[in-house]
């Protein structure tokens, strides 16, 4: 076994953005939120992720604007460091090493040079449960890496929940709630007051504190409770004469509370997914913002009070303008309790596909770390009610080209029969999404256990095989278009029903070329020919049932691999129909990389999961890593890379073509990354730091490059440059201009001159150019007009050619010299490309 130091398991995309309270910057332009091991900076207006502040090596547990400088932000992490960032430019300014895992961070403008962090209690056996609030004096030092060792405990035995600790008016006191006790510590008097509540009152309400908020100007502490009550505490500088009033609207736990900066309103949220705004001192008057989609987990208010922002349990951040209008929604990867479908990769968009919102499939771009869209599979209203059984998407499969998507939804109600629907979706080029083609209700009599498409890309017909607990497997095929319903298009129907000795089929798998279908019936693997539906052979490795079945790819396509419940990994050679090799390991998941021969096996051992990557033909594993994560891994996928990685190291070669993503027990999406890859990522962010004072905005890139190249062009003093150089980079500039979010661009008037300059090619060519542009415009119009009526087949190709690339123009000017023609062609090509881009957009 080989251990590999340079491959690491990391969070890379799809991580929680609702883990901690987001922070809105002072100018309300950016939103900072902890996301896995990095801090993400979003634009509040365009929802776009602007920066990904990387640097922490463990989960980021808190983000905070530096009270003394509103352009910098602190972040703390479980890796024991606090980092100071310039979030507008995405630069790491300083790293303070605390040395203990940090669970949350607090600061107040009235405590200069001190931050307060929550760490586990030292020297306590139950340190996993008890936490303390520690004041950290930040040393004044110019170094990048600073050790902050001047710690002093302020409060002990507090909750690790960051919402349960908050600074009071003017930083004079800090309030912290834990369990049934509220503790208020006054810094000046160095005195703490504790107030406790009874566990539950007579009416059955649970009094446990869930969150705390302090009024900015008055001495009033608002606390949220398990039973949905909000208490407003006053007079808490007295041991006995404290008093509180109770507000009750939420029916279950209040998860977050926040005062607006002026203290005129109190915001609260909970599982009801309603943002409630209470008027301070007139609590009878409240406003509601309902239907926010999912339970509210955090509420943040911008320092000017113009924006509210709520985090939701479905990994979403909603930005709300003055409690009336949802202005933006930042959606992360939706994670439910479990994933019914496997992790899949959409072959077209290369996005990750899995269960999202109830009854939906989500398409999540791993490269951009952004939810592309949700596909409503069930197409039924979801009713929020506990204990109500609803349709759920349990299986989904894509065919190799991404033209077809098959989904299975089921609903099992107590005492009622299982309801099953098999739906087939065709990809619609026009709308760029999937359209329902066929719904087969009750495709099987019992639960569907497996489903797969035939992989063969060349074959005309696509085939879907589904196996079910009713003892049958069925092959579905796209029926040839019948005469009767010609207008409806082809639909799917059952082609073949297979069974084997009345056993229950579990897994099914097509070979890479689609010529073989393997279906496992408990301990027997049957191999069928899909062309003739002939049972070719049976393979068997008693005594236990087959758990996973997988064909080898590419050069290893003669191998069929299977795992059994009796901790056996078997590899059959299909040419000899015999067992090639077998090894004893408890494989929970076996999957093949579609782009290479590699196979990955996740083995569960002693509460941890180990990963083995191997080729079926080779006895030695390519890669193995022990204890990848705790718990069992049941969902994983190989995602093809956009560009191949060139790694020469043997152990990381398997990651060159595709990346392996997997879901842990706690629904964290993890992946493997190599050192080189990480270095590359770091380099791209480092580059920003090295560049001098100018902020690394896309606009800078745009102008900076422009300037550089201009300089480069001017230096040789060549006369040709005047007409030639602006053009190629002009188009690049425009491309960037069009792709960059509008809010980061300078004003249009500023860009205009540059834009116009890019249009000016030369004195001689420009007239012809513009003429042609006019021509094209006309023809385009014509085309639009004649789109409906297909009558003149003669003119149409011409027009198409005109739009396509300007070949028509080339033939129209035969008198020019070859050089001229070449020049013109090039010029036109370039010009058209951006113009077309403009028109498209």
């Amino acid at each position, binding site marked *: 076994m080989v251990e590999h130091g340079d491959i690491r398991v990391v969070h890379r995309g799809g991580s929680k953005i609702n883990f901690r309270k987001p922070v809105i910057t002072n100018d309300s332009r950016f939103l900072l939120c902890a996301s896995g091991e990095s801090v993400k900076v979003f634009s509040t207006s365009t929802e776009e992720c602007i920066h990904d502040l990387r640097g922490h090596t463990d989960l980021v547990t808190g983000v905070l604007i530096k009270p003394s400088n509103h352009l910098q932000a602190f972040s703390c992490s479980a890796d024991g460091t606090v980092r100071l960032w310039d979030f507008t430019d995405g630069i790491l300014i300083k790293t303070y090493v605390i040395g203990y895992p940090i669970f949350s961070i607090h600061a107040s403008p009235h405590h200069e040079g001190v931050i307060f962090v929550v760490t586990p209690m030292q020297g306590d056996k139950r340190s996993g449960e008890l936490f303390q609030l520690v004041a950290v004096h930040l040393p004044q030092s110019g170094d990048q890496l600073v050790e902050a060792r001047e710690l002093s405990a302020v409060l002990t035995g507090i909750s690790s929940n960051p919402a349960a600790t908050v600074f009071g008016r003017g930083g004079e*006191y800090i309030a912290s709630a834990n369990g049934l006790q509220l503790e208020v510590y006054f810094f000046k008097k160095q005195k703490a007051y504790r107030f406790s509540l009874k566990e539950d009152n007579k009416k059955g309400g649970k009094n446990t504190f869930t969150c705390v908020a302090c009024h900015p100007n008055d*001495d009033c502490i608002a606390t949220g409770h398990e039973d949905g009550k909000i208490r407003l505490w*006053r*007079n808490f500088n007295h041991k006995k004469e*404290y008093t*509180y009033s*109770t507000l009750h609207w939420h029916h279950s736990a209040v998860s977050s509370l926040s005062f607006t900066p002026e203290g005129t309103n109190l915001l609260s949220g909970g599982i009801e997914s309603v943002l409630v705004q209470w008027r301070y001192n007139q*609590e*009878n008057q409240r406003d509601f913002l309902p239907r926010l989609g999912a339970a509210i987990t955090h509420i943040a208010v911008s320092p000017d009070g113009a924006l509210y922002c709520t985090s939701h349990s479905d990994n979403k951040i909603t930005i709300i303008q003055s409690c009336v209008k949802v202005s933006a929604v930042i959606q992360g990867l939706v994670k439910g309790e479990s994933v019914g479908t496997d992790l899949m990769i959409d072959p077209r968009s290369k996005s990750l596909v899995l269960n999202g919102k109830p009854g939906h499939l989500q398409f999540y771009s791993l490269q951009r770390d952004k939810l592309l869209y949700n596909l409503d599979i069930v197409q039924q209203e979801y009713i929020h009610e506990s204990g109500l059984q609803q349709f759920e998407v349990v299986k989904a499969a894509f065919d190799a080209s991404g033209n077809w998507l098959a989904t299975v939804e089921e609903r099992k109600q107590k005492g009622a029969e299982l309801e099953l629907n098999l739906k087939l979706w065709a990809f619609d080029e026009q709308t760029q999404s999937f359209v329902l083609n066929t719904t087969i209700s009750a495709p099987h009599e019992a639960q569907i256990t497996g489903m797969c498409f035939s992989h063969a890309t060349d074959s005309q017909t696509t085939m879907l095989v589904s196996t079910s607990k009713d003892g049958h497997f069925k092959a579905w095929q796209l029926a040839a278009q019948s005469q009767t319903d010609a207008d409806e298009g082809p639909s799917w129907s059952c082609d073949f029903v297979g069974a084997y000795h009345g056993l229950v089929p579990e897994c099914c798998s097509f070979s890479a070329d689609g010529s073989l279908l393997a279906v496992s019936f408990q301990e027997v693997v049957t191999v069928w020919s899909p062309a003739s539906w002939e049972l070719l052979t049976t393979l068997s490795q008693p005594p236990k049932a087959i758990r996973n079945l997988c064909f080898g790819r590419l050069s290893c396509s003669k191998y069929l691999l299977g795992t059994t419940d009796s901790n056996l990994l078997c590899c059959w050679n299909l040419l000899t129909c015999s067992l090639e090799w077998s090894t004893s390991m408890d494989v929970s998941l076996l999957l093949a990389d579609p782009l290479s021969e590699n196979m990955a096996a996740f083995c569960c051992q002693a509460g941890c999961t180990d990963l083995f990557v191997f080729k079926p033909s080779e006895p030695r594993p390519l890669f193995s890593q022990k204890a990848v994560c705790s718990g069992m891994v049941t969902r994983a996928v190989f995602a093809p890379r956009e560009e191949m990685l060139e790694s020469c190291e043997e152990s990381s070669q398997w990651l060159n073509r595709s990346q392996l993503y997997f879901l842990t027990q706690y629904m964290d999406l993890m992946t493997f990354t190599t050192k080189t890859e990480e270095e590359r990522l770091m380099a791209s962010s480092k580059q920003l730091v090295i560049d001098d004072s100018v902020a690394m905005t896309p606009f800078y890139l745009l102008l900076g490059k422009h300037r550089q190249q201009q300089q480069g062009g001017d230096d040789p003093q060549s006369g040709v440059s005047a007409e030639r150089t602006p053009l190629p980079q002009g188009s690049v500039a425009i491309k960037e201009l069009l792709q960059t979010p509008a809010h980061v661009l300078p004003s249009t008037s500023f860009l205009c001159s540059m834009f116009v300059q890019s249009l000016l090619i030369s004195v001689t060519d420009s007239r012809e150019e513009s003429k042609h542009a006019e021509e094209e415009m006309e023809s385009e119009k014509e085309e639009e007009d004649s789109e409906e009526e297909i009558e003149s087949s003669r003119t149409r190709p011409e027009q198409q050619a005109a739009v396509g690339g300007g070949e028509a123009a080339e033939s129209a000017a035969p008198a020019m010299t070859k050089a001229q023609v070449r020049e013109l062609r090039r010029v036109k090509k370039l010009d058209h490309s951006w113009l077309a881009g403009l028109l498209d957009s």
Partner: protein
Amino acid sequence: MGEFKVHRVRFFDYMPSAIRAMAFNSHTERLALVRADGALEIFNFADHYFQEKVIPGQDGRAVEALCWVGQRLFSAGLNGEITEYDLENLRPRYTVEAYGGPIWTIGSNKQGTLLMVGCEDGTVKMFEILKERIQFQRNLERQKGRIVSLSWHPSGTLIAAGMMDMIRIFNAETGHATHRMLVERGVGASKSREVVVWSVAFLSDYTIISGDSAGKVQIWDGLTGTLVRTHLVTKWDVLCLSVSQDESSLIAGTSEGTVVQFQFISSTVDQQEEEWVRTRTFKNHSHDVRALAHTETAVVSGGMDTQLVVRPLLDKVEKNTQESAMRKIALPHRSLVCCAKKAGLLLFQFPDHLEVWRVGESDGHGKPGDSLPVKRKPEKLIQLKGKGGDHIYSSALSPCGEWLAYSTVSSVRLYRLQYNNISITKVSKLPKDLCLGHQLCFSSDSTKLFASSRHSSVIVVALNQLECKYLHTLKPKSGSRQPVHLLCTSEDGKWLATANTDCEIHVYDLHKRKLHCTVPIYSSCPTAIAIHPTTSHLVVVHADQQIFEYSLVQKEYTEWSRKLQKQGLHSLWLERDTPVTHVTFSLKNPAHIILHDMFMFCIIDQSLPLPESKTLLYNQMTLRSLPEQERIRHSHAFKICKNFKHVMCVSLLEDHSLVVVERPLLDMMSQLPAPVRQKKFAT
């Protein structure tokens, strides 16, 4: 504890009437409370909230407001009269017509020299309080619209008056209105309705606080007449306000049954500037809270649901003590049931009528806990309507069941009953001395009637078939002016014991017709007394739950009583919050004392050891599960039965069957009118 055949009586449809007004006297710690039927009750807050005195009401006398002036108590009502009560003789002392139409409110200045009433016709009338009476002094400037509420500034110079749609401030000296503060009406449909300022409070810093029918509690500046702050408290009415003595806390009662507390606290820790902030909400009532009193440590509230609730403020009392427990006083602290032991008859006293019932009969036998088949149903024999408008104060049925007596504020009536064919005849010629009877009691052989009269004296009247004859008057030597509230005779007819609200217990020798002895005075008021039929020991239970046994022969506390005092009563016994209202004895077992309060009845077995402080007091259930030999070891003197709830009377009949009269609170609640509609979550 022995087995009894129990008559579980639930046909006493007693219904207390709604609490209408309240006044708390912080000097004497007495709470005066008036009910919708005009009955006045005095509770002693210093002595475990014991209901000391009751003055029955009158038909058609609706009291709207109460006011203490020193020790004197005044009330005013919609009949337009001001009444002063004679708390010693438990009757209205005099009534003065105000000539201003119905009176809505009454108040006095801090010095106790002037009384003012707010009338329907828009006048505020001032009365001078003289020693024996009150005298009309003058009218303040007459306003349009009724005066609903009044409050005098502590300095006595300004008066705030709540009216319809506005609050007026009067100069008390000139009588002119100086400010007129308009109160906003409610929103929506109630916009067209006038808003009633139900209550105002004038604080010493010239802040006026008002509660109105639009559900607002408003804070005004009384000097400038400007609105400072509005708290919308309820969708319905804010009916009453009460301010604590130190003016740091304010409570408001609403139609929803909630009491909302406001506190005068600084908004920031170190600042002196304070403001009124709404803090706690108490919901102890199902219906309107019509009356409130803010004592030093507690919020006292009462309303339509007839219960008096004392809710201690936890920031003012020690936590988890008896003081911090909430009290609900739902049933009167005196017996409204009289049981004729020999005849098996029950007399129920209602405010305006009496009912005589014969208990049912059963010859079945069963296991303990079984309900026996009823052979003869209980029947109502007589319903006797009270004469005149006066309500019944006290009533008694002789043990043989042949005599029935009741008293009102003005008279005593005696009736003779015959049961073979039911007839009732009034005894017409009563002795002249028998005109007042706070308590009535027959001797056990039904030959004498005892009636307590003024200054704790007792009139003895002899009864026979033909006539009733005044015998003599028994007078205590102490010269107490307080009325007798408990009266009992011994079985052998030798002793008569009286207890008055000065906590004195006098025992008279009826044969010698003179005072036999006075039991040493204990600080707490006796709530039940009884004389043992065989040993002639007097058993006294006090409001603080202490039990004393006094030997009338030796004129000293008995050995058992001393032992009990030395060892102390069990803490759980002392923590009970309802007083023992009846004591009786078992004829079979002379060592047994039977007593009851609202939630339990108890047999004290004097032959068994007293419970230690650590032993389980309520041990009947555990004893039942133990084998016979173990039981003796674990049993102690207090045998408590909690099977019955809301007990009004427990009495032992001659055939050794127990009569338990219950009045379940749920039955009482179901007779109340529907409360205001409130949106309840998930309905």
